């Protein structure tokens, strides 16, 4: 009796299996015909490893997911060609297994968006069986010569521009106090370079202004972000609030308190229509489109064509949202002029040359050393950059040539900056 | 008025595959005491729980005063005038007597009335009970708690009162007082059902007896027309010899001597207070006392499971005080304590009979350095014990928990005897056993006694102890009240000693519990 039942069940199971197989084959066939009709290259597959869920509706993973899907749409690749492993913590085994999964699916390029994936990506790129797969890792610093790059953006350039908008507004209000809600401070070059660029932008138009930083020690927490912004306003009577954190809470606080604000990540005007000056924004599709196209067309020379990618204003990888009517008069014109200087390569933020912008909008280059908030020189007049204060002097790097043209070593992005410039106060 | 106050017809109740009651019929007349007699597991309590609404029967009819009723909850049974006094009291320890009674008051009033104490005092007095309605239950003696339970059911107007094993926790004197109360209530027209398995009490108090056996209705007889022997036959289903043997053995020197022993219980109160006694080879020393007067602590102290505060434990002239339980086992002192749940101490319920056989000797069964357990020995031991004591089990690998109560106890006692001890400490070895199994155990103990083993028998049933034991030591709140020879004492005498009314230790000139030929040299 029992044997019969088991046999019957086994039979049912096997039928299901065969059915599954058949069904799948027909499915694949239909997929192929569809792909052939719609897409430029149906066989090209994109893989991505995310730190949180792919169905997030805001935040870091969302920004990258939006970037990848938009880029694929622009290129004409179907959604079916995207393979995602999400919710992968920064654990080498789990990341390696995710890479194996994506490689097994036949992905031609694999993106990893979190810093801690770095070693797993570096190891995978060296593997013999994966040498025809391109690995691309965001925010990292490792690479090889054939199939492994890293990428990030010069968001500090956009931040400098928002700093100008904030400084002009403060000048108009004659209130030298500006607030900044930051995820972290000097622990990460990503955050402190943003704060410094913003402060330098403010000081270019309003040298007496002070940027008060309130650190929340997490990349995103709506409650903490709100509390930090409120504390800045209550303690320092700030007239503008800028931010480097995931949600739009600081913008909303500014709106409620009837002061002004600069957003981050995406255009936050709809969150604070009466407070918003301008936001520093990322255009992730720009990189993803560049990378995927390069990988599709000429995978052998990916490192020559794309390489280590730190796009900025010039590539439109970063930018600012349209300057709103809340800004002081003339803001838009000044920002456009400075933006042009950066795009043309005439000038960049962390060099031995600073900008001084008069109320009438006249821009003068001033050669002056940049001091940190303990008054030691961090960028000398000749462009020598002591980017790692407190450690050995050997790590000083040349930041720019004497004329103030941008540097090539990208210390800001690779993560060696660990100080605040003068005029930034934490706490 | 209907002929019967209560009539149960063809009541059936099953628990899963177990049939607890099968087509049981029971009739109680107004103003009558009916004894419900049966061995453990015969379905008495289940039947009464059906009547009081705790269980719902699977089939059958219930009539109260001639009218058919459906009792679906204890609440309804209360409304019908049925009151139950459970074996384990349903009282709240931290409440006063009056509050425990008011607890069941469903009159809908939100606040407790202030004059509730007076009301209940008056009510009790009217019925002839003595009770302090302000006394907290925690501070009450067992008999007081029982009286309170009875008052409680009467207070809610019960005309039919069911008492489940009411005398199990009472002394002889308290029992006779309870019976007086029951007779008085009967004269007032109440119907009383008393559940018991003690034949003497049935004969003493009841008008009629209904006998159950293994969940089935056997017969109802009029008490005055029957006797112990006939009732036993009805209860057990066959003829049985009710006499317990007491073989005579030669007097031997003391085997185990206890001198000035003081032991504390788990809460740190003194449980055994300055106790001295001895056991000779070939002798059964009974220990009598009301529940919780230090029996458990005494057994544990002897077995090395409980630290002693002071005193001497001398076994064959050597002190065993402070030795580990293992060392004491190795000296040949076996202890079996059957707690109320029967499986708590001495057996590992989920393990097989084989594994339980190994419990005390698994370290000795093979070399000390052999990490593996020797199940062969356990299995052969199990086979021997199963054969010798005719234990009913499918195999030696059956978990002990799946055996019936009697067989479980046989496994335990069998193992202890298999180890060949010279002292057996056994507490409640027949607790919950049917008559047949009980007699099997008595026979085993007597055989050991003849072989020269000294036995300490902690028991509940004074009738049995008087027949089985050579001497009986009576404890009251951890203090010795005297050691009496069971040939020349009475149940009433023991009862008085158990409550502390009679203290023989003060009467004689010599201190009892010290043998004339003691091994202990006084310092």
């Amino acid at each position, binding site marked *: 009796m029992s044997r019969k039942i088991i046999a019957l069940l086994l039979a049912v199971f096997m039928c299901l299996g065969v059915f599954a197989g058949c069904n799948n084959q027909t499915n694949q066939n239909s997929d192929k015909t569809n792909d052939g009709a719609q897409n430029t290259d149906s066989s090209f597959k994109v893989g991505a490893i995310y730190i949180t869920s792919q169905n997030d509706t805001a935040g870091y993973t969302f920004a990258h997911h939006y970037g990848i899907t938009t880029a694929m749409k622009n290129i004409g690749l179907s959604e079916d060609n995207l393979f*995602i492993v999400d919710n992968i*913590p*920064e654990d080498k085994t789990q990341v390696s297994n995710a890479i194996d999964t994506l490689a097994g699916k036949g992905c031609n390029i694999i993106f990893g968006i979190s810093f801690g994936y770095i070693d797993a990506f570096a190891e995978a790129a060296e593997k013999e069986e994966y040498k025809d797969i391109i690995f691309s890792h965001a925010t990292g610093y490792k690479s090889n010569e054939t199939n492994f790059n890293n990428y990030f953006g010069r968001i500090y350039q956009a931040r400098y521009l928002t700093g100008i908008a904030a400084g002009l507004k403060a000048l108009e209000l004659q209130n030298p106090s500006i607030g900044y809600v930051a995820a972290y401070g000097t*622990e990460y070059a990503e955050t402190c370079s943003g704060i410094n660029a913003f402060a330098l932008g403010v000081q270019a138009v309003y040298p007496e202004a002070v940027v008060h930083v309130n650190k929340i020690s997490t990349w995103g927490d709506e409650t903490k972000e709100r509390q930090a912004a409120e504390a800045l306003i209550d303690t320092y009577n700030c007239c503008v609030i800028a931010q480097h954190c995931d949600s739009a809470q600081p913008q909303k606080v500014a709106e409620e308190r009837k002061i002004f604000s600069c957003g981050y990540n995406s255009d936050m005007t709809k969150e604070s229509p009466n407070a918003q000056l301008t936001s520093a924004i990322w255009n992730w599709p720009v990189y993803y489109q560049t990378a995927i196209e390069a990988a599709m067309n000429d995978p052998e020379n990916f490192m020559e064509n794309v390489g280590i990618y730190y796009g900025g204003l010039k590539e439109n990888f970063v930018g600012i949202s349209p300057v709103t009517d809340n800004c002081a008069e003339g803001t838009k014109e000044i920002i456009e002029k400075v933006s042009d200087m950066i795009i043309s390569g005439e000038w960049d933020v962390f060099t031995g040359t600073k900008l001084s912008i008069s109320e009438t909008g006249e821009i003068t280059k001033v050669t002056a050393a940049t001091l940190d908030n303990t008054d030691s020189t961090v960028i000398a007049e000749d462009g020598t950059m002591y980017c790692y204060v407190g450690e050995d002097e050997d790590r000083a790097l040349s930041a720019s040539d004497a004329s103030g043209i941008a540097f090539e070593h990208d210390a800001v992005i690779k993560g060696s900056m660990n100080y605040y410039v003068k005029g930034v106060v934490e706490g | 008025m209907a002929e019967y106050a209560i009539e149960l017809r063809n009541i059936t109740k099953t628990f899963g595959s177990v049939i607890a009651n099968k087509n049981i019929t029971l009739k109680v007349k107004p103003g009558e005491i009916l004894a419900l007699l049966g061995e453990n597991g015969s379905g008495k309590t289940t039947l009464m729980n059906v009547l009081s609404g705790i269980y719902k029967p699977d089939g059958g009819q219930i009539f109260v005063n001639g009218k058919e009723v459906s009792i679906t909850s204890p609440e309804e049974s209360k409304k019908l005038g049925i009151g139950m006094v459970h074996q384990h009291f349903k009282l709240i320890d931290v409440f006063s007597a009056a509050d425990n009674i008011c607890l069941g008051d469903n009159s809908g009033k939100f606040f407790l009335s202030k004059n509730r104490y007076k009301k209940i005092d008056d009510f009790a007095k009217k019925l002839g009970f003595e009770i302090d309605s302000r006394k907290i239950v925690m501070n009450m003696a067992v008999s007081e708690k029982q009286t309170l339970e009875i008052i409680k059911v009467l207070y809610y107007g019960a005309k039919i009162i069911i008492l489940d094993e009411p005398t199990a926790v009472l002394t002889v004197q308290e029992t006779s007082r309870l019976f007086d109360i029951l007779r008085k209530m009967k004269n007032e027209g109440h119907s009383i059902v008393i559940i018991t398995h003690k034949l003497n009490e049935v004969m003493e108090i009841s008008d009629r007896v209904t006998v159950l056996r293994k969940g089935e209705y056997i017969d109802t007889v009029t008490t005055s027309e029957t006797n112990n022997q006939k009732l036993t036959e009805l209860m057990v289903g066959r003829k049985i010899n009710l006499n317990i043997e007491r073989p005579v053995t030669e007097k031997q020197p003391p085997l185990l001597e206890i001198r000035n022993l003081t032991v504390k219980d788990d809460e740190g109160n003194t449980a055994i207070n300055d106790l001295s006694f001895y056991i000779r080879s070939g002798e059964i020393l009974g220990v009598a006392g009301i529940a919780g007067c230090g029996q458990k602590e005494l057994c544990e102290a002897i077995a090395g499971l409980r630290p002693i505060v002071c005193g001497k434990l001398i076994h064959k002239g050597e002190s065993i005080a402070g030795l580990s339980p293992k060392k004491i086992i190795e000296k040949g002192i076996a202890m079996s304590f059957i707690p109320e749940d029967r499986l708590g101490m001495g057996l590992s319920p989920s393990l097989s009979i084989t594994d339980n056989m190994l419990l005390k000797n698994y370290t000795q069964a093979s070399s000390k350095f052999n990490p593996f357990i020797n199940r062969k020995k356990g299995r052969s031991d199990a086979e021997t014990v199963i054969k010798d004591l005719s234990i009913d089990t499918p195999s030696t690998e059956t978990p002990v928990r799946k055996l019936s109560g009697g067989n479980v106890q046989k496994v335990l006692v069998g193992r202890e005897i298999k180890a060949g001890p010279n002292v057996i400490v056994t507490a409640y070895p027949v607790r919950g056993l049917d008559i047949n199994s009980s007699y099997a155990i008595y026979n085993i103990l007597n055989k050991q006694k003849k072989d020269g083993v000294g036995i300490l028998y902690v028991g509940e049933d004074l009738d049995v102890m008087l027949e089985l034991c050579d001497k009986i030591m009576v404890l009251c709140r951890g203090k010795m009240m005297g050691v009496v020879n069971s040939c020349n004492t009475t149940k009433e005498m023991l009862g008085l000693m158990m409550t502390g009314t009679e203290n023989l230790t003060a009467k004689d000139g010599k201190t009892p519990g010290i043998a004339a030929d003691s091994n202990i040299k006084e310092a």
Partner: protein
Amino acid sequence: MKTKQPFVRIVRRTDFPLWAMIIINIAAVLVAVGIGAILLAAIKVDPFVYYKDMFTIGTIDNRFAYKNFEGLIEFFVPLLITSLALALTFKMKFWNIGGEGQFIMGAISSATVALLLGNSLPSWLTLIMMAVCGAVSAGIYGLVVAFFKVKWGTNETLMTLMLNYIALYALKYFGETQAGWNFFLSGESVRPVFATFPESAWMYTIKIGKFSLNITLVIAILLCALIYIYMKKTKHGYEISVVGDSQSTAKYAGMKVGRIVMRTMFLSAALIGLAGTFYVSTAHSLSTSVTNNVGWTGIIVAWLSRLNPVMILVTSLLISVLRVGCQTAATNFPVIDSNFADLLQGIILFTVLMADFLTRFKIVFRKNTEKEVEDK
């Protein structure tokens, strides 16, 4: 008159045949798969494609299929060892829910050995040192709990739970604090990231064609056999059973219960620490999510397997396939994120637990009993 009876009653089963148990468990999985198929169809995903990938852990049409098996082993080995270790204490009715913490302790200690001594010792010695340090330190971490329990009667459930968080936050502290003393972090990165172990601290693998067999798999299966023997055949195993069944009986039999509890807890925690060592030496680095939740999953595995080592082997393999398979299958579909994969796993676990309930209890309906009575 018919007295009222509850419509459904739950009755404990005495015996349940093995074949029925197998069938009911298979049925449970089928039910879960069915529910999952409905959910998948509802979000317009072809259930057959999903399940094909899931049950084969994505090895069909995959030129790197061997990699999927390697990944499966990396998840399976720690889960198997942890579940076995937990079963040891559960058998004793000692509720060690500190698998996470003990795993982390093992990982941290073996990482310390790897990073400090790895460069100066031969590979075999480094690995043995890592295993010993990982096991002993985790063992002590568990022993503390047992000691407190035995000595002062503290609650082991609460204590092991709390120690989980202490270990986790210690690990996070090491992972985020850049300082000269912190050898756990990579020196070359300016952002805090855990250092990669020197090559001598990498776990051995045996190449079988392209597939590299991690020798921890062999060790884990060996451990499974050893623990089976330990639990069923040795005096220690016997003592564990007795203590778990009835502490008072164990004391009565002259067993030193405190010592048995401490010994078993040490062994259990040490095994979990060993699992931690195996994990990091296979990954070649620490991470703040080393445990992969095996300390929790192991509890489910141990209970589903009724603390039987052979069943644990099967159950942990099935759970690993489920985990890895769900992730692989989810990759195919943009609408399915890992949360959905977790949901599906949850449904399967739930139905299997329900089936487990049915093997222990039976549900009796009113009609049935009445019929029985009438028949008689």
